[in-house]
């Protein structure tokens, strides 16, 4: 029996228990104001997606293809920001309303929802979605705790 390996495992025990205690005590809440912000943001998003193309077509003298490119760029840039922000707020709602027994199924630190928020803050929409998908269906699997920060 390799005593050094065994002692290393014993040292890991305390780290694992800290993680377990963190998971037990985790109780994320968001303030009520966030919901009104969410509604305002959604309204702003819808108005902008409809309103920006309208303004571009109505009040600019650019050629049609230039207008189309300008609208596409504006919509892509804005929708990336808006979808990420909406995604974060939706996940915060999930953290607030989802049952503990559902949320505790995650075995990772940070939890999948926190990881998703971090990814949405850090990366562009498509990159973030790929990382979140990998985390949900590949990393968060099994019975042992896993530490996995977005990097």
């Amino acid at each position, binding site marked *: *029996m390799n*005593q050094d*390996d*065994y*002692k290393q*495992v*014993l040292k*890991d*025990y*305390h780290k*694992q228990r800290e993680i*377990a205690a963190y998971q*037990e005590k985790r109780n994320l809440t968001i303030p009520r104001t966030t919901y009104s912000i969410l509604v305002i943001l959604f309204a702003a998003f819808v108005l902008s997606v409809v309103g920006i193309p309208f303004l571009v077509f109505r009040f600019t003298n650019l050629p049609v293809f230039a207008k189309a490119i300008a609208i596409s760029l504006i919509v892509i840039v804005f929708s990336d920001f808006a979808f990420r922000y909406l995604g974060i707020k939706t996940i915060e709602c999930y953290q607030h309303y989802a049952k*503990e*027994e*559902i*949320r*505790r*199924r*995650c*075995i990772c630190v940070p939890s*999948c929802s926190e990881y998703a928020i971090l990814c949405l803050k850090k990366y562009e929409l498509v990159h973030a979605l790929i990382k979140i998908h990998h985390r*949900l*269906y590949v990393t*968060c*699997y*099994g*019975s042992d705790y896993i530490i996995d920060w977005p990097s």
Partner: protein
Amino acid sequence: MSEETKYLKLARAAREEENSEDAKKFYDMVRTDDPENGEAKFFYQYYSMYEGKNGELANRFVNLVKVLDPSVKFISQSNESESEKLAVIKAIVDVFTPLTWSNIRYMNNLTVKVGNTTEKVLPGSDFTLVQKSGVTGLYDLGDAIVKYFSRSPEAMKLALTPWKEGVFLQQKWCYILKNFNKSPEEYTAKIQKIEPSYTMPQKANWCANKPYDR
């Protein structure tokens, strides 16, 4: 100073220095002189667990679990002061509580490559034996402390640590321990009598109907 006391002090010093070889040697000497020394009985068995083949680890762990109750009984009957007895009980609790989880972890790490696949060296029956005897040992350690130190509130608090670990592990390994003769609810109730704020940990995700749905 008697020979036994001298060896006991040397053994404790070796234990604090994490010198398992010397600790085992001195605890063995104490055990030979006084077979009813609970501390020596437990720690000799504990250090014996570190030695030998990996394949016999489960059996050595079962032997350690068997000496828990008599060790606590002998400690409670010894001539030492109450604070010294509690210090020894605390040392036993600190040492024994992480063992079940650590043994499983250590056994999980023992793998061998067969072609392109990695397989565990030890059979599944060894894992089940360690899991069942470990959780039983944790509950029994808490029960023994409560039984032999029922007048000491501090000792009652010490019993909480192995009980909590037992409930945690039984919930974590709920699939393997589903036909186990001890229920986590029973021990949660016992813990809550001493610590009312305690809540039973949730079962592991792989016990749920939809294991990977989150």
